[in-house]
Each structure stands twice: as structure tokens, then as C-alpha cells.
């Protein structure tokens, strides 16, 4: 599960570009800041956490799925 802090995200899209599983894509709608923030593509993320590290803006957190369900 990928969580996005929209307040921190500046829309560089590096997470989308470098995700080895194509688990992120730009949102269709512009948000308040005028960017297309990343949204998760269902059932693609394997929790490698690369997007977390490559994000220059501390905007992404990868959380375990079952953790989320609990």
C-alpha cells in the first residue's frame, strides 16, 4: 500500500518513473497545488519501497497491506 502526503508532494513523478512494478500512475485530476499526484495502480505494489527513497519530498510511505487491514 502506498500512502501519499499530498501536502509534501510537488509532482516530480520520479516515483512513477522509477517504480519497477509500474505500481504508480499520475492522477487524472489536478489537485489543489496544480499537479497530478501519483496514485496507486491496484495489486501491483510488492512493497520494495524504492518510491519512498527516491521521493525527494518525503511524501511517500509504503505500508504493509495486512498492517493496513488491521
Amino acid at each position: 500500500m502506498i500512502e501519499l502526503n499530498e501536502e509534501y508532494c510537488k509532482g516530480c513523478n520520479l516515483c512513477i518513473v522509477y517504480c519497477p512494478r509500474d505500481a504508480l500512475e499520475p492522477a487524472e485530476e489536478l489537485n489543489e497545488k496544480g499537479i497530478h499526484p501519483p496514485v496507486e495502480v491496484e495489486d501491483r505494489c510488492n512493497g520494495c519501497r524504492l518510491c519512498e527513497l527516491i521521493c525527494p519530498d518525503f511524501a511517500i510511505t509504503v505500508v504493509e497491506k495486512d498492517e493496513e487491514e488491521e
Partner: protein
Amino acid sequence: MEKKEEKREVEMISAKEIRDKYLRHDMMPHIFCTGCGIGNVLDYTLWALEKEGLDMDKTVFLSGIGCSSRLPGYIDVDSLHTTHGRALAFATGVKITNPELNVIVFTGDGDCMGIGGNHFIHACRRNIDITVIAVNNYIYGMTGGQVAPTTPEGDYATTAPYGNLEPAFDMSEMAISSGATYVARWGVKRPNQPINSIQEALQNKGMSFVEMMSPCTTAYSRQNRMGSIEEFWDWYDNKTILAEDHERIKQYGSEEEKEELKDKIKVGVLHKEEKKSLSERIQELIEEVQV
């Protein structure tokens, strides 16, 4: 830096935990432009701090002036945001006064190699026990894209509108020849090597220098037509070669491969040696002559 006696078991902690532990959230989001790599340098530093288990009550960050020098403000720690180029001289005073503190300096290519060049070479010469993390983006970013001592010859800047006429400094080579005892250079695109390298730098009891090549997506990219953010980030990756590979090709490579080396920037741990730090030597002197 104080080396841990036994290897610390690092639990896989979440990015959220790291951020909550180290960041000043009230200062966020940070000021860096979209696609700028300075935020990554901060992120990698935080991971290295966590892996090394440094006590943040006994750690001081310093910086000079420029984009990279805003970094200490985002970390919940004692910090000195000083004058342009002078952070290493301030850091020298901090470390010598209290050698038990972990002292880390963020600087940039203009801050460190331009106005602060003299302090830089002397801090290396003294092998003072501090860790310097230098963000090299080849340009003066904060002031709007003026030419830097690191700007490659021929590149464009607002004050080099016809192309840079001057040869560039290689920061890491300068650190090595000036006496630093741990020197590494990495690009921001690959997170793991810099994280490990910053951790090694923190462990080294002497002057450690980690050069982080980071794309300036506003001032440098626009003037030098580096393309989209991802094209610019990829350019850094394509432009670099691991120091080991560089050495191998130099020795055993084909002529074609050797030709290609000319345009490449070496990354990796470029230098490592053991030498007594100045802070240690001063302590020894005191023990010898104290009344």
C-alpha cells in the same frame, strides 16, 4: 565519529517513523524545487543516522549559504546555519571544543569550493573529525543560476551566457589531495550506496567527504537543456561509472571502452585511509601538558 563497539541490529523501520523521529515537520514541505535532489540527500542522511544509531542530542549539523545549506533546518537537532562558505570553520570550533559531539556539515559546490575553498582544504588537511555532505549541482542555485567553480567548461549559466570559459574543480579529488581520510561520490538516483557511504563517513574518525551529485532542475537544467526531470536524473546515471569499473576498464578495457571513459564521472568510495584526527591529537596534547 564514535564508532559503535558492536554491530547494531537495524530493524526495518518505516519511512514514517524515520521522518517523525528526525524531521521538523513544522518546517515542511521543504523549499527545494520539483525534481531537485537535495531532499534525497537529506533522506539518505536520515537513514544513515538511523543505521548508525547516532544520539541526536549529541549531534550538531552545520551549513553555510545556498540551497543545500537550508538542510539542517529540517532536522530536529542542534544546528548552526552560518555565513557563506564558513561552515567548516564554525564546525572546527564545535568539534574541537567538544570532541564527543558528532559534527556533520551540509554544503554545496559554490559554498564549499568557491567562497569556502580555503576553509575546505584546511579542514581536510587537519583531518578534523567531521562529516561533510556536499551537494554538487554545478551551479549557484539559490541566487538564480550563476556559474560555479564546478560548472563544466562550456556549460551555460546566467553569468556565463556564452558558455563557461573556466575549467571546473573536482570536489572529491580536491578533498583527497587536501588530506581527507574518507572520500566518496554518488549520484542521488540510487539510494542505497549513498546511505551506506554516509554511514561509513560517520564512522570514520577523521575528515569524511561525501559528494552527492544532485540535479538542479530549475537553474541548471533550464539553461543547459537537460530535458524533463527524469531525463536529467537519467543523464546523471548515464554519465557516471563505478570507480571499480573505471579502474578495470583502464587496465583491461578495449580502446573503445577506454575512449568512453573520458566523458564519465567516477562514483564510489574514492579514498579511504586511517590517520589520527586533529581533535584526537589536541586531546592527547592536553593530557600530556595539563597542570
